[in-house]
């Protein structure tokens, strides 16, 4: 989780990612931010995020995103 928070803070140091739950719906993540974010996650966590998982509910909070990464990681194993 800490690794994910670091990636997110690099993009938006002004946001409190531990509490924010409207990253997409609240417009904090900009359009096109998502490519950079996913590329970094795929590098750092060694997972491939399927395109159909790239929907607001998986990206609205750091917790949801972490749950997604964990779920995909388990499927891969």
């Amino acid at each position, binding site marked *: 989780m800490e690794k994910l928070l670091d990636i997110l803070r*690099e*993009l*938006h*140091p*002004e946001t409190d990612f531990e509490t924010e739950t409207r990253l*997409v719906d609240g417009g904090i*993540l*900009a*359009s*096109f*931010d*998502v*490519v*950079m974010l*996913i*590329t970094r996650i795929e590098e750092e966590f060694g997972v*491939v*995020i*399927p*395109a*159909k998982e*790239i*929907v*607001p509910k998986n*990206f609205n909070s750091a917790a949801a995103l972490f749950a997604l990464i964990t779920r995909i990681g388990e499927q891969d194993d």
Partner: protein
Amino acid sequence: MKTVLEYLSARQSAGPDRPMFSDERETLTAEDVALRSDRIGSALIMRGASREPVLVWMRRGGAMIAAFFGVWKANCFYVPVDTEMGESRIRSIVERVKPRFAIVDESADALLSACGYTGEALDASTLLSEPADPDALETAGKQTLDSDPAYLVFTSGSTGAPKGVVGVHRALIDYAEQITKTLRATDSDVFGMQAPLYVDACMKEILSALKCGSSVVLVPKKLFMTPVPLVEFLNAHRVTALCWVVPALTLISALHTFDAVVPQYLKTVAFGSEVMPPKQLSVWRAHVKARYLNLYGPTECTGMSCFYEVDRDFADDERIPIGRAFDNTEIFLIDENGRRSDEGEIFIRGTCVCHGYYRDPERTAKAFVQNPLNPDYPETVYRTGDLGRINDRGELEFLGRRDDQIKHMGHRIELGELEAAAKAVAGVDAACAVFDRERSVLGLVYTGAIEKAALLSALREKLPEYLLPKRTAQTERLPLTENGKTDRKAAALLLYR
């Protein structure tokens, strides 16, 4: 023909009920667009507007495009503004232009006075409730010249102040001819528009709709975060043509979207505004059979000036050419000695060259210059600041910039504008903006007491989203070159410390 609005009458008689512009809220037919623009034009004339800039500050949608046309019908030129441009950008536009009239909807209400606007704010829905005045419209139409301004759009400026590019009617007529020919637009095409309406990029679709009867669907901005719903949207609307900035296309290809869903109706995929990575183009071409066009052109020359139709495969380290100039436009390269050359700065001449920058003679004189190859009579050409070369096949290639301008997320950015905004924040002593081309990351290195988070919050208030740094580093002092200038290359390294 004096303005591209003459095409609108043809559209009205050819198919008044055909959808012209659709957005999340409504679909406007050719008839709707004509009626609305008549009413808005009449209402402006009635209030005394003539040959002057009119601010149009509305939500992105067909209603805003109809308002643009209404401004033309009143023999005025529009200045498009969107809340997403950010308060400080809008304030500097308002200060420079000082418009007497603004056409607004509820998206502008709260911010108008905060941005220093003191003129009359005309609610679009009020203007639409007033009757059209055919006589007044006819008189205004007669007074319009094809050499008059059509719009003022603002691009990033190096000293912090954006530059207002004065677009001209006859250049739009020319552009309508060239861009629709290049795109092979027809009345069976459906364009999925990605561009915001406050840049000239939106003209590709608008002109295709006017001249060829294509229909335009404005793709909601929020879809450009979610590639699968984005492609599903294109399929649901049977979109046949895209003219998108490169990051919008790579959002789809880089995130394995084609494993889940593939666009089914596309015939034309045009891209531009920054360099397309060949790898991403290959992914697209492997999954979607269409014509692929690389477009290039500065706002100062009215939309795009040159194109290359992809006709071969490219290795990952190859350059996709920008091809050759549109008809009625010449592109030539000038070397350091001021001579025509196969490699050098890109100059553009033709009807497409706009009138210069609004209330900005200094910066106009630097970019709109006498043709260096013509000593005989006055001839203004535009020097782009871009570097190019002619390859072995005779195609033009884009090499990069002469200065600190970059293209990022489809927008032109002067690093100086980000620096100027950062330096204006209390607690920042010095700032250096850098662009990491490899990772396509805009970064900011600064000195001063303010924390990163507070600085970012302050910048967020002032700047449009695409000008916000994605990486920030605080440092004791900025690295300098031997000449005592800020060393951007060394500063860039600090970002990844």
